C-alpha cells in the first residue's frame, strides 16, 4: 500500500509543486503585484496607516458579516484611475466615497455642496467663487486648499485623456484668492459647467497624490481604498481623519461579478447585502418571492435609445423615422427587455431632470399609421442593417423591435456585435450601421443631438442653436431651451426612445437608506444606513 501511495503522490507532483509555489508567494508579499502592498508601504505620516490594525482584523470579513457591508456590482473597474479610463465602474466606486468633488448631485437631482462649503456665481455666469471647507486633508496628509482646486482643474485640462475632460476646456483661469477661496473664470457663460463639476472631472486631487493613480487613490473622502483585488473586489475602510460626518458602515466591500447570474446567486446565498445594479432582470422573481429581500426600483439617467444613423439615405425622410416610432409598441419592449420594469419616455430626458415634459404621446404606437407613412414616403419593403451590442437588454429589445417592424413590412436584420470592443469600433466610431440600440447613461446627454459628429449624425441647426444658447443663458433660458429641444427631436423622430432603464437594486434586511435613483456617476455609500 505504501508503494501505491507513493505512486499516486508521484502523479500528484504538479499539484504539490504548485502548492509550494503559492506558499512561497504568499510568504513574501513584495513579490505579488497586489496593489494593496503599495498602499501598505506608504510613509508613516500617512493617515491610512492608522487604519492598518483595523485592516488586519477586517481581513477575515467576507460576505455578509456583522461589521462590514458587501455590495455586488457587475462591471469591474479596470484600474483606479478614472482620468484615463472611461469605465463607469471607477467613478461608481470612488467618486464621493474616496474622491470628493466641490459639489455633488443629490437624489433629487439638485447640486449640493461637498468640499465647497458654499459658492457664488457672478451675474454673467462666468465667475465662480468657491469657499472651501476648513480642516480638510487628503489621505496622504496633505491639506486640501485652493491650490489643490487649481491643480485638479488644470490637470483635467492637461493630463486627462477621456472624452468627458473636454467639458473643462471652457475654464480660462483658476485663481487662488486665499487658502480657502478659489475663483474659477470661464471663457464664456455655461450652465453645464457647474453640473459637470459634479461628475468625476470635479474630483479633487492632491498635487502630491497623482503618481500612481491606477493603483492608489488619494482623496479627501470618507473612505480609503484598503485593497483592490483585481478580478474580485475593492475593499474600502472608513477614513478615520475624515472631516465630515463618518459614514455608518466602516468597512464596505465592493464585489464584482462579470456574470449577472453569479451576482444574483451571491445575493441568494447571503454572500452580499446589496446588489448595486441588477443586470439579469429575468432573475428578479427569485427575490420577489423571498421575504429576506427587498427590491428597490428607482430611476436612472439611462435612456435606451433606438438610434437612427442620419448619414444614411433611408433616414433622411422624417416620415420613415416617424413610421418606425409608430410601429413599435414600447410597453412590450419594456416587458421583454427589463421584465416590465422601466418607464416610458418620449424623448432624451429622464423624469428627474427639471425640464422633463411628458412626450410619450408624440408618436404613439399605431402600426396602420406607420404603414401609411411608409407608403407615402415610398419606403415600403425597407431593409435595415440593425447592429446591436450583445448586451442582454439590447438583444431582447432588438428582437421585439425587429418583429414589430416586420409587421409593418420593414426588414431589420439583426447583427450582434461584441460590446464594448466591436460595437464601439464599428457603430460608434465608424458609423457603419443603419439602426442600433444602446442605453445612454451619461447625464444630460440630450446635448449630443446638437453634435453632428456624434454617431447618430443628427444635424439640425435649430437644435444646435438652442443648445448653445441654453448653455450661455441664464437658468430659465437653459431649462426652456432644453425643454424645447426635447420636443423638437421627439417630433422630428431623431431617434426612438424605447424606455428609461430602471435602476433596480436588491437589498437584504441589514441595509437601509439605499439611494434609489441612479444620479450622477457615483454610488453614494455615505447615505447607506444600518437597519
Amino acid at each position, binding site marked *: 500500500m505504501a508503494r501505491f501511495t507513493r505512486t499516486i503522490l508521484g502523479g500528484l507532483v504538479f499539484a504539490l509543486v504548485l502548492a509550494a509555489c503559492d506558499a512561497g508567494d504568499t510568504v513574501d508579499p513584495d513579490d505579488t503585484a497586489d496593489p494593496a502592498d503599495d498602499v501598505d508601504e506608504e510613509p508613516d505620516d500617512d493617515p491610512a496607516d492608522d487604519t492598518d490594525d483595523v485592516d488586519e482584523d477586517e481581513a477575515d470579513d467576507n460576505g455578509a458579516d456583522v461589521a462590514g457591508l458587501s455590495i455586488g456590482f457587475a462591471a469591474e473597474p479596470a*484600474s483606479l484611475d478614472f482620468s484615463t*479610463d472611461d469605465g463607469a465602474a471607477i467613478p461608481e466606486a470612488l467618486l464621493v466615497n474616496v474622491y470628493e468633488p466641490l459639489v455633488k448631485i443629490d437624489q433629487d437631482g439638485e447640486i449640493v455642496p461637498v468640499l465647497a462649503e458654499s459658492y457664488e456665481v457672478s451675474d454673467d455666469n462666468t465667475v465662480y467663487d468657491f469657499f472651501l471647507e476648513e480642516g480638510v486633508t487628503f489621505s496622504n496628509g496633505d491639506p486640501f486648499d485652493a491650490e489643490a482646486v487649481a491643480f485638479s482643474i488644470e490637470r483635467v485640462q492637461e493630463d486627462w485623456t477621456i472624452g468627458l475632460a473636454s467639458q473643462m476646456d471652457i475654464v480660462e483661469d483658476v485663481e487662488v484668492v486665499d487658502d480657502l477661496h478659489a475663483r474659477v473664470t470661464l471663457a464664456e457663460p455655461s450652465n453645464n459647467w457647474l453640473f459637470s463639476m459634479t461628475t468625476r472631472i470635479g474630483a479633487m486631487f492632491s498635487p502630491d497624490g497623482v503618481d500612481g493613480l491606477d493603483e492608489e487613490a488619494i482623496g479627501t473622502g470618507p473612505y480609503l481604498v484598503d485593497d483592490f483585488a483585481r478580478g474580485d473586489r475593492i475593499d474600502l475602510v472608513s477614513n478615520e481623519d475624515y472631516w465630515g460626518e463618518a459614514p455608518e458602515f466602516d468597512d464596505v466591500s465592493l464585489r464584482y461579478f462579470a456574470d449577472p447570474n453569479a451576482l444574483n*446567486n451571491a445575493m441568494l446565498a447571503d454572500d452580499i447585502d446589496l446588489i448595486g445594479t441588477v443586470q439579469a432582470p429575468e432573475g428578479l422573481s427569485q427575490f420577489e418571492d423571498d421575504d429576506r429581500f427587498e427590491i428597490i426600483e428607482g430611476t436612472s439617467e439611462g435612456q435606451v435609445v433606438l438610434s437612427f444613423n442620419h448619414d444614411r439615405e433611408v433616414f433622411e425622410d422624417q416620415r420613415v423615422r416617424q413610421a418606425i416610432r409608430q410601429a413599435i409598441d414600447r410597453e412590450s419592449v419594456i416587458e421583454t427587455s427589463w421584465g416590465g420594469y422601466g418607464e416610458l419616455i418620449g424623448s432624451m430626458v429622464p423624469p428627474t431632470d427639471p425640464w422633463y415634459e411628458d412626450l410619450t404621446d408624440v408618436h404613439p404606437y399605431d402600426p396602420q399609421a406607420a404603414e401609411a407613412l411608409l407608403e407615402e414616403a415610398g419606403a415600403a419593403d425597407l431593409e435595415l442593417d440593425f447592429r446591436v451590442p450583445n448586451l442582454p437588454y439590447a438583444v431582447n429589445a432588438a428582437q421585439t423591435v425587429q418583429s414589430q417592424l416586420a409587421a409593418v413590412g420593414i426588414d431589420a436584420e439583426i447583427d450582434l456585435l461584441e460590446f464594448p470592443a466591436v460595437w464601439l469600433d464599428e457603430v460608434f466610431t465608424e458609423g457603419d450601421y443603419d439602426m442600433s440600440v444602446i442605453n445612454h447613461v451619461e447625464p444630460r446627454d440630450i446635448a449630443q443631438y446638437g453634435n453632428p459628429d456624434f454617431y447618430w449624425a443628427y444635424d439640425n441647426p435649430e437644435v444646435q442653436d438652442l443648445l448653445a444658447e441654453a448653455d450661455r443663458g441664464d437658468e430659465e433660458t437653459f431649462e426652456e431651451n432644453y425643454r424645447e429641444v426635447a420636443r423638437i427631436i421627439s417630433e422630428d423622430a431623431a431617434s426612438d426612445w424605447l424606455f428609461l432603464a430602471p435602476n433596480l437594486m436588491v437589498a437584504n434586511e441589514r441595509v437601509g437608506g439605499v439611494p434609489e435613483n441612479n444620479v450622477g456617476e457615483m454610488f453614494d455609500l455615505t447615505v447607506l444606513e444600518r437597519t
Partner: protein
Amino acid sequence: MLVQLTKRTLVLLVSLGLASAMVFWFLSVLPGDPAQVALGTGATPEAVAEMQERFGTDRPLTVQYLDWIGGLFVGDFGVSYVTGATIGPLIIDRLMVSLWLVGAGMLVALVIAVPLGTLSAVHHRRPLGTVLAGVSQVGIAIPNFLAGILLIGLVAVSWRLLPAGGWVPPAQDPIEFLRRLLLPALALGIIEGAVLARYVRSTVLNVLREDFLRTARAKGLTPARALVRHGLRNAAVPVVTILGLQLAVLLVGAVVVERVFVIPGLGSLLLDGVANRDLLLVQGVVMVLVLAVLVLNYLVDVLYTALDPRLRAAA
C-alpha cells in the same frame, strides 16, 4: 536519451514560436481597438490617436510582434493597456489562483477515479461494475460549468451551506479559503473524476489479465493484495500519462469554472482581457497556457520513465 531530449527541446521551441506568431496574428485581426475601448463613448478621434501612440498600437504589426517576442525572451510580458501594470506579475498572481483550483480539482478527480475505476474493473461484468461504469458515463456527459451551476443552485442557494463564489487567499483566511474552494473544485473534479475513472478501469482490467498477477496470486497473495502490490503500480503508467494531459484540460476547464464561481484566476483575467482588448495581456496569458501544456507533456514523459524502468532501457 540525450538525442531524444534535444529533439523534444527543438520541437518545444518551434511550437512556442509558431504559437506566439499565431496568437499574435489572431488577436491582431480581432475587431475592436484597445484605445477606443479605454476611452469610451465620449472619445474624440484625436484622443484615440494619442492613446494608440501611447499603447504603441499605431506601429506596423511586425514591429509590434518583434517587440513583444523580444520582451518574452527576457521574461518581459509588457505593460497592460488598460491598467498600466506590468503583465508578468499579474499573470503569476492569477496563475497561482488557477493552480489552486486545478490542483484541488485534480485531487477530487483522483479521490473519485481511483476507487471508482478499480472497483468497476474488479466487478467487471457484475451488477456493481455496470452501475459504476454507467455513473462515470453520466459524469462525462455533464459539462463542468453545468455542474458548477447545479452545485451553486443546491449547496449555496437552496441549502446556504457554502458561498456561491468568490475567492479568499489561503494566507488571509484558510477556513474561508477552503469554503470557497470546495464547490468549484467539486465542479471541476467530479467530471474529471468520471473521465479518469474510465481510464483507471480499463488499465486495471488489462493488468488483471497479466501473467505477473497470476504469478502473484500463485504465490499465495489474496486478490486484493496482489492488485494493490503489483497491479496498481503497473496500471498507474497509462493513468499518469492521461493525468498529465488532463491537467491541461483542467486548466482550460478552469477558465469557465472561474467565470461561474467568480474566481480571479487566469481564466477571468483572460476573458476580461479579451473584453477590454488588452491585447498584450491576452497574448501573455495564452502563451502561459501554451507553455503549461507543453511543459506538462515533458513532465509526463519524465514521470513515465520513472514509473516504468522498462521504458528507461528502451530509450
